[in-house]
């Protein structure tokens, strides 16, 4: 079993050009955009000012008037808070007592409702962050990175709920393209470019799925709002989404819903794949379109067979829940990690013709030990622990792992054979400072413009780094 103890430092950075642009020198990477999201973030959610904050309320207005104004400005709950405020308590104690009574009754009702229907619990940002692939999702500048499958287009979602599209840099063009921003797009958890389309991006957020279709003939008025939005049938936030290989189907899951939703966006239809068990958290469609890996918020995870009447096989972890997973480019192997133990597991999807047994198909094998270990003799820099994210390079030669509590990135070498997979130690990669950690990582897909494995790292400082692997 491979381990982190014999990792070497990745070949040193030979051409650090700027803050957001450090890499081992590969000429093609010169055309990659220089991105530092910290400088570009506009109006993060915490600093947002609503229109009502721009006006100073009149001091002399009566209590009923103030409450009714708050009701029309901020809704029922705001007005109830206003009715229970200290100021109202002083001016009109009867009203505040009545508000206390109403609030008490509503609390009783909601606690009673939660006891009967525990799944109707509001999904807070903390709960979303618990199952997101992005490390420290709430405070991370970079919330998601998605590469276009066929052409050079990179979408980066920031904590300001804005998606920025980048292209190649040229002498005349800095690389930044469209900026996708909308009021219906908040708390972005995932996104994906639609395969076989030039510009169709779907963003999964707390409001559902926002589809951005940019027709280059029509610039005006299109980026103000998504082309259309599809809401989860129970109005739940989307926690994970993946397109099928041909871009006809979209699978999504939500941490509040047991079913996986298979969307047919063109006809705007949805089909839930239901199974008893905990709600879903993470999805991953195999590159050959045959399987969907679906993790849940509990120990259970499933693999759905897309071409076999959408039946599923079920597995149970020893503890925790599946945190991250990735498919091999050939779709024969799946690697995953859970939150309970720092071990990298393997699932095999190879149909053995000889010596076939039922148990072999379903066997989960540990392939790498991810227990934390020191990278230097002074025991100051550690690598390992519970994994945060896994990505497999499109050539199938490297698996890259980030961790929840340590800041270095581990790169394992992989050798894919027809019926076997071997993993051995590779490299580790650090940020520019010891405190800098990777928020999100992703590989650029192979296409006609790119035949190299380019690792894209969104660091906690907001810079995006591109690293070309051999």
């Amino acid at each position, binding site marked *: 079993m491979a381990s982190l103890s014999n990792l070497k430092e990745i070949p040193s950075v030979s051409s650090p050009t700027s803050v957001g642009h450090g890499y081992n020198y590969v000429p093609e990477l010169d055309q990659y955009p220089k991105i530092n999201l910290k400088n570009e973030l506009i109006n993060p959610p915490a600093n947002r000012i609503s229109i009502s904050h721009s006006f100073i309320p009149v001091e002399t207005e009566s209590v009923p008037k103030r409450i009714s104004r708050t009701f029309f400005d901020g809704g029922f709950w705001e007005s109830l808070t206003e009715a229970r405020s200290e100021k109202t308590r002083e001016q009109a104690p009867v009203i505040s007592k009545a508000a206390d009574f109403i609030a008490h009754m509503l609390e009783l009702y909601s606690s009673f409702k939660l006891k009967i229907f525990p799944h109707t619990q509001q999904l807070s940002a903390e709960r979303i962050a618990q199952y997101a692939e992005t490390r420290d999702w709430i405070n991370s500048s970079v919330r998601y990175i998605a590469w276009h499958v*066929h*052409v050079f287009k990179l979408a980066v979602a920031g904590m300001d709920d804005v998606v920025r599209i980048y292209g190649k840099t040229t002498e005349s063009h800095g690389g930044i393209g469209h900026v996708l921003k909308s009021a219906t797009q908040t708390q972005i958890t995932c996104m994906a470019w639609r395969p*076989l*389309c*030039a*510009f*169709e991006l779907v963003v999964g957020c707390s409001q559902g799925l926002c589809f951005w279709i*940019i*027709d*280059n*003939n*029509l*610039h*005006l*008025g299109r980026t103000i709002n998504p082309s259309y939005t599809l809401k989860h049938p129970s109005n739940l936030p989307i926690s994970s989404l993946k397109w099928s*290989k*041909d*871009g*006809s*189907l979209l699978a999504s899951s939500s941490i509040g819903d047991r079913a996986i939703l*298979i969307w*047919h966006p*063109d*006809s*705007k*239809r949805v*089909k839930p*794949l239901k199974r008893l068990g905990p709600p879903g958290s993470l999805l991953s469609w195999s590159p*050959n*379109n*045959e399987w969907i890996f679906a993790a849940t918020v509990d120990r259970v995870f499933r693999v759905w067979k*897309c*071409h076999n*009447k*959408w*039946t599923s096989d079920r597995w149970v972890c020893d503890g925790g829940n599946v945190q991250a997973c990735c498919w091999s480019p050939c*779709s024969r192997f799946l690697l995953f990690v859970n939150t309970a133990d720092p071990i990298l597991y393997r699932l095999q999807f190879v149909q053995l013709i000889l010596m076939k047994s039922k148990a072999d198909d379903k066997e989960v094998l540990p392939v790498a030990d991810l227990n934390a270990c020191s990278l230097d003799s002074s025991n100051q820099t550690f690598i390992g622990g519970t994994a945060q994210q896994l990505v497999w390079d499109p050539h199938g030669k490297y698996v890259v792992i980030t961790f929840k509590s340590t800041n270095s990135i581990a790169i394992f070498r992989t050798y894919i054979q027809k019926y076997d997979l071997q993993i051995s130690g590779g490299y580790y990669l650090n940020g520019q400072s010891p405190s800098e950690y990777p928020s999100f990582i992703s590989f650029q897909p192979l*296409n*006609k413009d790119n035949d190299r494995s380019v690792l894209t790292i969104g660091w906690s400082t907001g810079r995006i780094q591109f690293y070309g692997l051999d």
Partner: protein
Amino acid sequence: MSEAALNTCKLLLFGRCVRAVLLSVGVQFLLLTVFLLLINFELFHPLNWIMSSLRLVCSFYTWFACIPLLGAIVFYGMTLSHQHLAERRYWPTRYRWLLHNGPQKLLFLFAHAIVGYLTAWLYTGYLHTDYRHFIFKAYGQDCVNSYHIFLLGMGLCAGAYYFATEYMQEEASIDFDFAEQSRSEKLREVLYATLLKAPMSSVMPTICYTFVFWLFGTFLRYRLSIVLNVDTDDRLLGIVDVITNGRLLFYAWLLGAQIVSNMRLMRCFYAAILSEPLPMTVARHRLSVPGEQELTIVAGLGVFNVYVVQCLAANFLYQEAQRQTSSVRSEIFQLTEPGNRPANWRALCDQCLSILDSFTDELSNSMRKSNVDQPIYSDTSSALLAEKLLLRQYNQLHGIRPVVAPQHAEGPSRDWNTKSTDSIRRVPNWCERTSTKLEELLQEVLHRIPGIVYFFYEPEGAKTEFLLENALPVIWLTQALAQICVASIKEDNYGIVQDDLPAIIKALHRLKCDLDRLANGTPNFRTNSSNFNHLRYAVRRSLYNICISFYKYLGDLTSSGEELRQLQTFVYQG
């Protein structure tokens, strides 16, 4: 299309329809059990409640009394099968549609009414004695039972209501599942969804029927009493009598829910069973027995008069094209003996291209027809026009005035006028002028007569809409064809596909341009309909799939520089 293929299709579909009818017959007992459990509910004696209900279902009375209803279900199934398997033809005017479809629709309405009536008749037999009989004795005299009539009427009304909402204007259609699950899961899902939805869906027909019964009920009972030579009872005379009788309303609502869910279930069973994948072959095997049911994909695609078969063939090809490894695909790329010729690919490609081209031609013609007075804009100019329109709307919204005075667009009519003034015009004589005027006057008068335009004129864009509604085979064919072309890079050992790539690209590009034109340039057309979007994006993705896979060779595969430029732009910019 050969006679043998048609017979094979008919046999296969007949078998499926029989299975759907049998399933519909079986579900009657399930629905009856649900009904009996609901009306005999006893909170404090649950065992007794369940046992007595099940005993009633299994009783001889039920089995005998069910016979008329089951007969009606078989009749309903036959008419439904006919609706599903009938040829889908375009009727330009409502009059012609009515002339052709009217009798069939009437027959189908009758089937709905008879199923509704017989369901109500059977179910009332299990109700309280006050509701059970058509005629009852009151003070020694035979009277018509108003409660019973009310419930029978509710059965008729529920059947007619379902027909009116689902089938009156639309053809019986099948929603092909994009995530095909096993039959048991599909049926279970349908059953749950129907039984959950039925209680709400029967509220409105119950309220409407109650109101209608209050208006015409008295007259109906009076006529019935005369026909049957009995007295009328004095119940349900006013609206208050009707709306205060909770039990009657509950029974009516329950009956409505049962009938509506029964019909919905039958529809779903038909859709589920008819849309099941049809086993097809690429080529007819030489060793196959003559009587064996073997249908080739090409023959299936050629069954133009049975829409379901064409859809199933296209879907089969699409599914096989999407698979990672497919024996069907490898058979397509094989050379056939004798002669080592790519007969399989040739037949398939020709069939697909012929369907695509004829669809594109029809679509273009229909668009031209609906835009007689408007110029047909090119792809880019229509996009520019749309952008101009958006810009104008934006400026108007924000109060931005144009710097220069707006110039009126010069349409083709103006061009024509200018040209005509330049050239020498022939002045028509008084006779021609008078006849033209008379013709115009007559048309104007005809237009003013209510119903004439509605029945005898073709609605604008109707043909286009019809084509888009029935474009499912084209949607799957384009994607399948593109995927086969892409797979040929690795799997086509003999290079048989590459000769046809230019024709395939050209066909897809032509269709894509037409659809873009429809989306951008044609006003007053519902381009946001799901059928249109489905087709448009499927065609775009298919073309993109081929272009991105053969990007290096696009120059060799396209016939003109303009087409090449458009395709290259399409790959990068959409």
